[in-house]
């Protein structure tokens, strides 16, 4: 309410409260209430599959989660996907942005190509790449064979390690263009005169990149990283459509486990507990970012 303190006139203050109230009410309705509801449900045995009733169990669900290896595996996969795909998408996205920023005669085909993967629904990307990696009909194995690799074709999505790698490749492909778009916007903001001055001083291309491009681009990079990290923690669509989390649980993320527990198993209580765990994870990561962000001028 610090903003309100700045308003001196009491009449103005009332007006401000009245004007802000709808926004707060809306936020409370669509953000605070659902989160509160999930936290509340997480203390109940709320299996809807029938005959179980709705009963308060205190911290039991949290205890179950603590000993649930599937939960820890899914959490680890979520963290691993974040740690792998966010930096990878940043590097690829930066490359794409630099490429798109080159003085092409026609810029729109380049920018359109950049936009396309971003505009495609995640589930489409997952299904398309599932075909790419299919053992018999996939283009990946076709290319491998044409390159002359003999022997049995690799079953990409049936080997735990390969399946995880395939999911990561797909996520990087899908998300780099988003990174590239934000970074491209940042690149166009850098004044050309800086490069011209550097050119006069005899700086190499690499020096220009390190001394001008990167520092000037930093705010865009941080924004892109925050967005990407938060969505990476919520990864669901691509592994769900590509592998269904398989083989076994080798590519299952936290969001998928929550979906499975709540929608397939109809265990709303435990599903809520898992959702709270994911909320805490996202909150922790966001806090770290925000603190860093507050320190940058």
């Amino acid at each position, binding site marked *: 309410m610090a903003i309100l303190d700045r308003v001196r006139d009491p009449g103005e203050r009332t007006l401000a409260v009245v004007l802000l109230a709808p926004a707060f009410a809306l936020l409370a309705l669509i953000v605070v209430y659902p989160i509160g509801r999930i936290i509340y449900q997480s203390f109940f045995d709320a299996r*809807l*599959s029938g005959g179980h009733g709705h009963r308060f169990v205190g911290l039991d669900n949290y205890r179950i989660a603590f000993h649930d290896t599937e939960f820890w595996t899914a959490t680890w996969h979520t963290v691993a996907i974040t740690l792998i795909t966010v930096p990878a998408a940043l590097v690829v996205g930066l490359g794409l942005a630099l490429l798109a920023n080159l003085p092409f005669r026609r810029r729109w085909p380049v920018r359109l190509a950049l936009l396309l993967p971003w505009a495609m629904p995640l589930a489409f990307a997952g299904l398309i790449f599932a075909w790419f990696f299919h*053992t018999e009909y996939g283009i990946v194995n076709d290319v491998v064979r044409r390159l002359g690799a003999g022997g049995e074709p690799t079953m990409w999505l*049936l*080997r*735990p390690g390969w399946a995880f790698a395939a999911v990561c490749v797909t996520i990087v492909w899908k998300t780099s263009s988003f990174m590239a778009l934000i970074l491209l916007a940042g690149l166009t903001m850098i004044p050309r005169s800086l490069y011209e001055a550097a050119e006069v001083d005899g700086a190499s291309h690499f020096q220009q990149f390190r001394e001008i491009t990167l520092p000037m681009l930093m705010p865009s990079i941080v924004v892109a990283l925050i967005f990407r990290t938060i969505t990476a923690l919520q990864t669901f669509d691509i592994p769900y459509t590509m592998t269904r989390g398989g*083989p*076994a649980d080798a590519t299952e993320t936290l969001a998928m486990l929550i979906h499975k527990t709540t929608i397939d*198993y*109809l265990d709303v209580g435990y599903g809520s507990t898992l959702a709270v765990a994911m909320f805490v994870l996202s909150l922790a990561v966001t806090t770290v970012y925000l603190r860093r962000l507050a320190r940058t001028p």
Partner: protein
Amino acid sequence: MQRFRLAFAALACAALAIAAVAPVANAATTLRVFSGGANQRPDLMRKLFDQYEAAHPGIKIDIETGGATSELQRQYLSTVLNAKDSAIDIYMIDIVNPAQYFGAGWLEPLDAYIGKADAVMKPYLPVYLQADVVDGKVAAMPGFADAMFMYYRKDLLERYHIAEPKTWDELAAASKTIQAGEKNPNLQGLSIQGAPIEGAVCTFLLPYWSQGREFNDASGKMTLDKTAAVKGLDKWLAMVDQGVIKRNVAEVKTPDTVNEFKAGQVIFAINWGFAWDRFQADKDSTVQGKVGVMPLPAMAGGKSATCVGGWQWAVSAFSKNKAEAAKLVQFLATPASSKFLAIEGSLLPTYQGVYVDPDVVKAVPWFKDAANVVIAGKNRPMSRDYGQVSDVIRTTTSAVLARSRTPEEGVAEIQSKLARVMR
């Protein structure tokens, strides 16, 4: 602007007109029926509803469809029924679902409208006494049946003078002989579903059951014989190693089996009943007239068993027209309706007698062979937590077939994950 105003006025008039007519329409009862996805043939169900409407003036039947697969339908219906939605009176549900839906209090027990469970279920195939009766109450009525069938290439077996195999080992040997003789590297001996889909639950159960073992007892408690389960999964893996089943079987879904058999790349194929029409009637099928159906092989010393499927009619516990809905369900579950669906849509009958009905045999000759398979059929584990039971079995089976789990690890995982649910 003028046009909008006109349109608005027209709409308002229409609304008024509807409101005025509504009380008259209400004099008749409208029953809303969820009738599954395209595979459950809502077009044919509509014809049955038309028959019923003609015979019962004052009853109007609306149809709702949705969800291409059983899993998608379960997700949709679980949401609707959890919300205690009274908009839908009758549901068509997969045979694996009455236990869950009835246990959750979503279905109206039909005893009061139709009769006591034992007497009601007597004329039907034996599997329904277990599938549609929950806690001694009639939870649903049989709509049409389905089962996993063993289809095979009659022409190839004849060419190599091979009799219908009775055991999995005989089947593997027959496949090897034909594969060697045909010299076609793409010819698969046996096609089963190994992707983590509902069909993989049957892939797990078929060799297990065929050793004379049960997955659960009548009360729903798990009675998994781990040694037999491992033996069953080992049998599939051995056939993969022999080149009878293809290496990437863990990627194979129901339509893959259908398409590859149609393309002439498969000698033996396990699939649901609908596949017959795809093999025999589809224009792009290369195997028309060359397809046979036989009972599934067993493990040596065991007994043939198959997975029963099919669809049930149930009345919503939240319906406002339960008595009328129950009457319609009773009609849908009569021998006449079953016969209609068999002749018009090759949907498998729920009565043993209908399989040998002369009209049915004339329209769908292969039902003669199908009858024995369906009668020997078994139910997948009936559980109010079937969603979880199915997910655990199919995911684990697929992982074993992908060799990212050993059969021993897989079976131990099924045992430990389901012990809590099936007790």
